[in-house]
């Protein structure tokens, strides 16, 4: 077997990693915009608490986050019966892997969008209001286009984070080949067995290509924005 021949297990891990990262970003983006908007624009009691809660996965040991996900979303967890009734199982499934990745990426996405929102001149939004734009239209036609670079940056950073998520994922959904084994957990698995240097090398190369590609993409998009 040549060094470059990617095995079906590795291919599965790659495919799953991409799917998990995409779903995680797609699901957290709208919520992240909403939370970032509230954090950037609203002053209310509990503002600091919400901010801390959003950033918690960033500072908590990932294994703790994974455990808490089990406690809340596991079959016997707080929301387990409710999810069961919906026919949805998260613990030890690929959907759960996406959830774990989303939770871990969320603070990074919120941060990027919040910074972009804080850079928007509220006087432009005020001017749009005097031109007849309702608050929703102001958001859709003024705020959103202005934060687009931040939104994209947040999405790319979130994607990269979701791609590499390991601790919370392996705690919440384990490491089942073909079902929950992402690239990171596959690397971890082969590292446990001696004599798998070729497989480790290939997967690390894949990780590098993916992460580097994501960074390049964000750079290109950012430049396009500036040129406009």
């Amino acid at each position, binding site marked *: 077997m040549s060094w470059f021949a990617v095995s079906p297990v590795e291919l599965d891990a790659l495919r799953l990693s991409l799917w998990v990262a995409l779903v995680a970003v797609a699901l957290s983006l709208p919520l992240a915009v909403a939370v970032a908007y509230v954090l950037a624009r609203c002053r209310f009691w509990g503002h600091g608490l919400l901010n801390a809660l959003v950033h918690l996965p960033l500072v908590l040991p990932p294994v703790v986050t994974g455990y808490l996900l089990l406690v809340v979303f596991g079959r016997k967890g707080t929301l387990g019966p409710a999810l069961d009734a919906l026919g949805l199982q998260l613990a030890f499934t690929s959907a759960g892997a996406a959830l774990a990745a989303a939770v871990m990426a969320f603070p990074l996405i919120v941060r990027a969008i919040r910074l972009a929102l804080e850079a928007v001149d509220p006087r*432009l939004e*005020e001017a749009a209001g005097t*031109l*007849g734009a*309702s608050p929703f*239209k*102001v958001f859709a*036609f003024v705020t959103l286009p*202005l934060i687009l670079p931040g939104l994209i940056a947040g999405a790319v950073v979130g994607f990269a984070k979701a791609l590499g998520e390991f601790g919370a994922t392996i705690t919440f959904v384990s490491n089942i080949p073909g079902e929950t084994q992402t690239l990171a957990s596959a690397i971890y698995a082969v590292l446990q067995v001696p004599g798998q240097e070729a497989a480790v090398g290939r997967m690390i190369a894949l990780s590098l290509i993916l992460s580097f590609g994501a960074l390049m993409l964000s750079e290109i998009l950012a430049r396009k924005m500036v040129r406009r």
Partner: protein
Amino acid sequence: MSLDLDFHLTRGGFSLQVQVTAPAGVTVIFGPSGSGKTTFLRAVAGLEQVDRGKIVIEGSDITERPAYRRAVGYLFQEPRLMPHLTVLGNLKFAQKMGRQVARQSFDEVIALLELGDLLNRTPFALSGGEAQRVALGRALLSAPKCLCLDEPLSALDQGLKHRILPYLERLRDRTEIPILYVTHDPAEMARLADHIVLMQAGRSVLSGPVEAILSDPAAVPYLGVRAAGTVISGQVMAPDPTTGLAVMGFDGGRLILPELSQSKGRHIRIRIPAQDIVLAREKPKGLSALNVFEGTITQLHAGQGPGVMVQFKTGKTLFLARVTQYSAQNMGLALGQTIFAIVKATAFDPAGIGT
């Protein structure tokens, strides 16, 4: 079409009390900084909430409506153009957001403000004056029932100001909506105003037509002695045969003006500051000044300062002159007296001559 305002609001320690009716045309809101002019405009546009009172446009009460449902166009001190849109995009934005079709068509606004060459530029590529013209066009295209202009020229240098003023004069002459115009520049006020509202410490203290307010001695404490003076409207006549200088006819006589670029028959208005008029009890002889009018003293007003404001009438035009108290006593000025007013032809600021 008119704007009826009677409201009160309090912000922190500042309170604003406004009671004004603004008819179609330009109503200039004049006062020192901190007198509440901007808050006044923001309240009309719905950007500040009033505590009590009413804001009525064309008979409909808009007091409770949010800013975006008021149809009050607003030109801020800075242009506030959308940086992610081109000039055309900014103008179309207003058309799209405004709930009704603007009175002026897109092409009319482009022509009025000469925006044709700017349409494909981004806001970053505009000069301050151009950006403010685009912002004005944008406000017009949002189909406003009233326009609020908040010191739109204050961020521009003197030269640019005089390039924008003619656009504002044209706008005034071509729309029938009320325009509220905040400024603290007497020359701008004299050129644009049809009506004046004087603000002092959060209150509208005096309001009325421009000719009446500017030649009213009672308004001088609020205007300041430098801003007090007569605004005369008249028509450009044939040049003076002996001197070749331009002549403007008004109700009460004729004025000889230097450097008048307007052509014959044009309607113009000029401002004569009260401190630029010299008074005499007898008809002066052998004088270099070209403009001498005979008038009757209608009001004498001694202020707190060393000056006395003398209002006199020539034809139907009321003039205001400022002399020292010493001169007033020495000359024995009294109501109903006949006096002669001397105005130097070079006293007129050519840039202060409006249409």
